């Protein structure tokens, strides 16, 4: 294995992973009530296909995708649908969103789906369609429906599949534990995805601070004996696991700002997504559970749990020994990009990779804000090579032309600039506030341009028709005159 590759920019952060990786993954008890938010993936909300009072089996589909960019939902427990109503949702920071609530009957009766012995027997298109039925979404955090991602790159030649095991955010260790304990699943999933995409090679990337995961993966690769797959180490520099950053580090190519990875012949999936694909295809298990890291000084026993989707977060905390008195904040995701939850009643969703029960020690309090001193630390760490200080100036004045020029839309909100700012300016927050304004402006401009074009082509068409009509009239008159004479 060669030395670790890295992309430009980024930060070396304290990983905080040792607490949660001491114990092996434990299986959390199925919840008494599972709450499944209908919009827990990117794209459009799913549509319920069960009614209140209906009995469902574990793994039975309960909501179907509404559009092409949407995903199936499956029952994570067997029992009765008791409500379809707004419930606190983790993807809304704890605010209520329409959810299906299932009461557990304790039987775990399974809804049987066929398991595919030999996935290579299926045609790639057929396999892609089959994967779509599993309700799998990007488990790294973005939650983009996997089937839509596969469709976006289908039929492209010489595609490289990138399996993202670079878990760069502090505190999160679910992918590392997955690779340590279920490496074979990851490798199988990668091979299935390769077949579905007709990819020519597959790179599995993981950070150089996870030697045990690396050994496990290497062993699994050897067992699989598939030459097309290889392992690559990336330097543990946040945000190494960002899709665009990882592609730049591994392939030395940048994704065009207005394009997708497929445009440079790459498709990126998270390791957990690959494992979920493997479970579905090989065992017929849809996405009804995932590994969640429970950590932070605010919880008694930090560890990784294999959790049913829809389990209330409060229950997971209980399984980890409950809160310690030091708890101050509850985060879903890591400390850099994670969202603060207002309540622990919210349930685990498909993209919940980590719950940080944070104490004051985990969170460095922000000092009062000073004016920017243009030190340039932010530009040095920006993985998108932006000048955050200039963006900040333009965001303060809401100068849309300036924001466009300095590339606000290319900001990935990783928080590196915010982290290093000596003036303690909440840059990411400012950028997030300014983005909708700029997006609306750009949309309006594009719409006006399109409307203008259509208006002009319509005018031109009408003029052409009128001219043609006049010409035809002339012709007829001439003919009539000739007949007369």
């Amino acid at each position: 294995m060669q030395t670790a590759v890295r992309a430009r920019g980024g930060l070396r952060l304290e990983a905080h992973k040792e607490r949660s990786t001491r114990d092996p993954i434990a299986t959390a008890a199925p919840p008494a009530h599972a709450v499944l938010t209908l919009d827990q993936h990117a794209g459009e909300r799913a549509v319920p296909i069960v009614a209140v009072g209906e009995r469902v089996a574990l793994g039975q589909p309960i909501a179907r995708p509404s559009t092409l960019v949407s995903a199936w939902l499956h029952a994570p427990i067997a029992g009765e649908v008791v409500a379809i109503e707004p419930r606190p949702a983790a993807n809304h920071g704890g605010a209520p969103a329409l959810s299906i609530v299932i009461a557990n009957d304790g039987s775990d009766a399974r809804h049987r789906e066929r398991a595919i012995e030999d996935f290579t027997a299926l045609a790639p298109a057929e396999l892609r369609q089959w994967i779509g039925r599993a309700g799998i979404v990007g488990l790294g955090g973005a939650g983009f429906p996997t089937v839509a991602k596969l469709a976006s790159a289908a039929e492209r030649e010489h595609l490289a599949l990138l399996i993202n095991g670079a878990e760069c955010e502090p505190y999160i260790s679910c992918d590392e534990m997955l690779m340590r304990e279920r490496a074979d699943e990851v490798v199988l999933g990668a091979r299935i995805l390769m077949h579905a995409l007709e990819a020519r090679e597959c790179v599995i990337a993981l950070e150089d601070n996870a030697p045990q995961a690396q050994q496990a993966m290497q062993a699994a690769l050897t067992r699989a004996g598939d030459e097309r797959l290889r392992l690559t180490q990336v330097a543990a520099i946040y945000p190494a696991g960002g899709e665009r950053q990882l592609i730049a580090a591994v392939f030395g190519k940048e994704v065009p700002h207005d394009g997708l990875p497929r445009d440079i012949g790459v498709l990126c999936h998270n390791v957990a997504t690959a494992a979920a694909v493997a479970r579905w295809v090989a065992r017929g298990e849809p996405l009804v559970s995932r590994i969640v890291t429970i950590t932070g000084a605010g919880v008694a026993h930090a560890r990784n749990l294999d959790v049913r989707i829809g389990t209330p977060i409060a229950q997971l905390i209980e399984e980890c020994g409950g809160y310690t008195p030091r708890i101050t904040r509850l985060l879903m995701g890591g400390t850099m990009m994670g969202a603060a939850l207002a309540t622990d009643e919210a349930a685990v969703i498909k993209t919940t990779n980590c719950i940080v029960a944070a104490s004051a020690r985990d969170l460095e309090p922000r000092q009062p804000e000073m004016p920017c001193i243009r030190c340039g630390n932010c530009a040095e760490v920006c993985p998108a090579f932006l000048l955050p200080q200039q963006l900040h100036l333009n965001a303060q004045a809401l100068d849309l032309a300036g924001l466009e020029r300095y590339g606000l839309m290319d900001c990935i909100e990783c928080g590196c600039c915010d982290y290093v700012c000596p003036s303690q300016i909440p840059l990411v927050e400012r950028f997030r506030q300014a983005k909708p304004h700029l997006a609306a402006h750009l949309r309006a401009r594009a719409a006006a341009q399109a409307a203008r074009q259509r208006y002009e082509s319509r005018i031109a068409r009408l003029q052409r028709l009128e001219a043609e009509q006049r010409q035809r009239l002339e012709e007829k008159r001439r003919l009539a005159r000739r007949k007369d004479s």
Partner: protein
Amino acid sequence: MQFPTSPPPHVVAPNTVGRVMRIVIYALLPTIVAHVLFFGPGLLVQSALAVATALAAEALALRLRGKPLAFYLGDGTAIVTALLLALCLPPLAPWWLVVSGTAFAILLAKHAFGGVGMNLFNPAMVGYAVLLVSFPAQLLSWLPPHALDIQTAELSFAQTAATIFTGRLPEALAWDAITSPTPLDALKTNLALGMTMQEALANPLFGGLGGRGWEWVNLATLIGGIALLMLRIIRWHIPVAMLGSLALCATIMYAVDPGTYPGPLFHLTSGASLLGAFFIATDPVSAATSDRGRLIYASGIGVLTYIIRTWGGYPDGVAFAVLLMNFAVPLIDRYTIPRIYGHAERP
């Protein structure tokens, strides 16, 4: 259970402007110590005066502008400005010079532009340049360093303070007897008088590298500067580009005519070269912002410094060069916006 929420990121580095400025002040300590060793305790009086004036002016400006006093006074930027200005002044310069220069720097060069983070020009250099063009005689009469063999009067701390405040030397001492030009000044004057380089450098003012005493002050500055680099308070671009372009100019001209132009080592260890490269040009507020921009900005300072030192009317050009390049910074910034990830071209 309910929890308060806050926007991400939920952790930030424990770094503040105040911490950055504190480290800069500590990094100036070697220079200050060397300065006091070679030029007597004048600098201590000047620094105290300058810092007091800077804080008073800052407080006045903040009060007038209705900003929180304690918060901004604590950031240390005014103290750094005051110390840099004091380091540039002759140790026995009269008190009103220090006070007016510092007040000008803080009030006009800093707060008129909007205070910390907004000043287009380096306040310390504005203060110094104003004093230099207004009172050249006072600004150019330095003390000879103690390392010289020539008989110099050792002024005690009390005598120094008295001289600074009253403008009168202790009895039995005359200004002419104790002042001496800076090495850059002396070299320039003597060369202008028609001396050869050897004759000019035969003056006891000059040591192994640059001016005697001065070379040690500059080496102390280098130590402080390297500390700043290692603590990542500043980055290499500005010092390297400025010293590099200065040395390059000096080397070229030295190669052309060693009899008229002193070599690169002399330039690097004379005047405010090192102080400028590590402490003045690196002031982030008035410097260019991207790496490429900083290289251009600092190379410009190096070249202008050399031009002004060699052919201009003033012995040292760092202050003017910094001000001129400060002026060019917005233009440099405009043309050195880095390429954004995923874009083929720079915006």
